[in-house]
């Protein structure tokens, strides 16, 4: 099969598989729960941290509205990817999925794209909710950097989510890891706490974990501070590429090990 045909076949698996999986997710969650998880909960999170930020006086309230909106959006990528494997196992379809000759990368990509798009939508709605209810000063010129930041953050988070999802092939309870990742990202990315208030080692860590670069870019844009879109978005996308690379290695290794040990659906 030529490279072009392989690519088309892979993309078909991504699009069709992703659409089916996303439809199943919505049906499983039910529309009210979907609304709560995707819109209402992130909104309340934005309000909460905006109030805390206003109370602390460490930064302008806009800083927290934008930071937590992007943080909430990117989490959709992490939860979406890590739950993709967990849900297949829960519904008893994981073995069927892995027995197919379809490329694992394309399958997982199909699970990631809809949740990442969802995340971007959450960020956009969160920012507009912040403008409508929390007095976020929103000008047309900052919409583009915020949008770019949301896309980059969602992409790098999807990479991290894919690593967690791949580990889910070997280990049963990845919910713990996903939640821990959520809390670490909340603290160490500058979404809820200005990084300048944190110790140096946390600031160093924020350079290699998803979201921090994108969030900083959006916060700088809102505050009217100078920022470099190429540098921030570039750093975030390089991180995304690294996370995706690691995820593919972990995915292949986890699948091989779970097949050899016969633990795919037992763990």
């Amino acid at each position, binding site marked *: 099969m030529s490279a072009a045909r392989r690519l088309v076949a892979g993309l078909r698996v991504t699009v069709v598989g992703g659409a089916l999986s996303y439809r199943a997710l919505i049906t499983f969650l*039910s529309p*009210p*729960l979907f609304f*709560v*998880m995707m819109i*209402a*909960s992130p909104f*309340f*999170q934005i*309000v*909460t941290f905006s*109030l*805390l*930020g*206003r*109370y*602390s*006086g*460490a930064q302008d309230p806009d800083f927290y509205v934008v930071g937590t909106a992007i943080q909430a959006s990117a989490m959709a990528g992490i939860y979406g990817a890590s739950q993709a494997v967990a849900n297949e196992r829960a519904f008893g379809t994981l073995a069927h999925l892995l027995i197919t000759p379809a490329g694992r990368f394309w399958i997982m990509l199909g699970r990631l794209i809809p949740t990442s798009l969802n995340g971007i939508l959450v960020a956009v709605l969160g920012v507009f909710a912040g403008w409508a209810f929390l007095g976020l000063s929103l000008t047309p010129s900052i919409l583009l950097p915020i949008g770019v930041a949301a896309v980059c953050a969602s992409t790098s988070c999807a990479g991290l989510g894919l690593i967690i999802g791949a580990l889910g092939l070997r280990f049963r*309870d990845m*919910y*713990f890891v996903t*939640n*821990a990742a959520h*809390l670490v990202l*909340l*603290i160490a990315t500058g979404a*809820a*706490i200005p990084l300048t*208030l*944190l110790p140096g080692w946390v600031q160093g860590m924020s350079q290699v974990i998803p979201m921090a670069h994108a969030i900083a870019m959006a916060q700088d844009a809102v505050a009217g501070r100078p920022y470099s879109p190429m540098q921030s978005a570039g750093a975030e996308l390089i991180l995304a590429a690294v996370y995706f690379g690691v995820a593919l290695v972990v995915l292949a290794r986890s699948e091989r090990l779970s097949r050899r040990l016969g633990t795919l659906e037992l763990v």
Partner: protein
Amino acid sequence: MTRNVTRARTLYLRTLLVCGVFQLRMLLQYKFYVIAVFVQPLAFALIQFVMVGHRDDADALANVAVQAGLMGMWTSTLFGSGGGLSRERRFGTLEPVVVAPTPLAVNILAISLATALMGVISMGVTLLLGGLVFDTPMMPERPGVFAAALAVAVLANACLGFLMANAFILYRNSLVLTNLLEYPVWVLAGLMVPAAFLPQWCRPLSEGLSMTWAGRALGHAMSGTGEPGREILWCAVTGLVCLAVALVFLRTVHDAVRRRATLNLI
């Protein structure tokens, strides 16, 4: 007659304690609750310590550990009590629990009590974090009052959890409400920022929550200031109101689901 009533009450109390301990042991097996009572309060306490620390307000900083502990208590009660009956349904034990000779209220209250008790762990964890890392007091100025406030907070939370558990019998998708209520109650109860910092229209909602009074009472018991006695009383009153509403609600819901034979369908 009086002797029988006393004996029945003793038996109900025993059931409440035995079931409560059993539920507590079961909940501690779930990684979700381990996160909810150990990890999440630590993370939110850390955020609050750093943010409130920037205000340079020693009194506010001293209250952070207590507030973050109560946040853990609320999360545990919310998800534990909200999902309590769903768990029973999943295990296939809902019908035996409903038809048991012990009143259903006692069994549900035991679940709520266990989930609220887990909040004591959160409180311990956040007080330890504050003392070890942020140099805030670990021991309350009035230990007796603090213990009384914590006990009333647990019981009031259990009553609130009991009310939610009943409401969720009627509503199949209880996960919707549980996910929705976590942050708003933290904010309204003044656990993230003082209630006085909230808009005026939020204040009545805030005053109606037992968590608000529990937070104030525990904060005052820690610092040795204010009138924690009055706040403990209000915490108890709001908790009892929840209990009374829940008992009326349970009777209605219980009758309805049995009459329609929809207990396992909801």
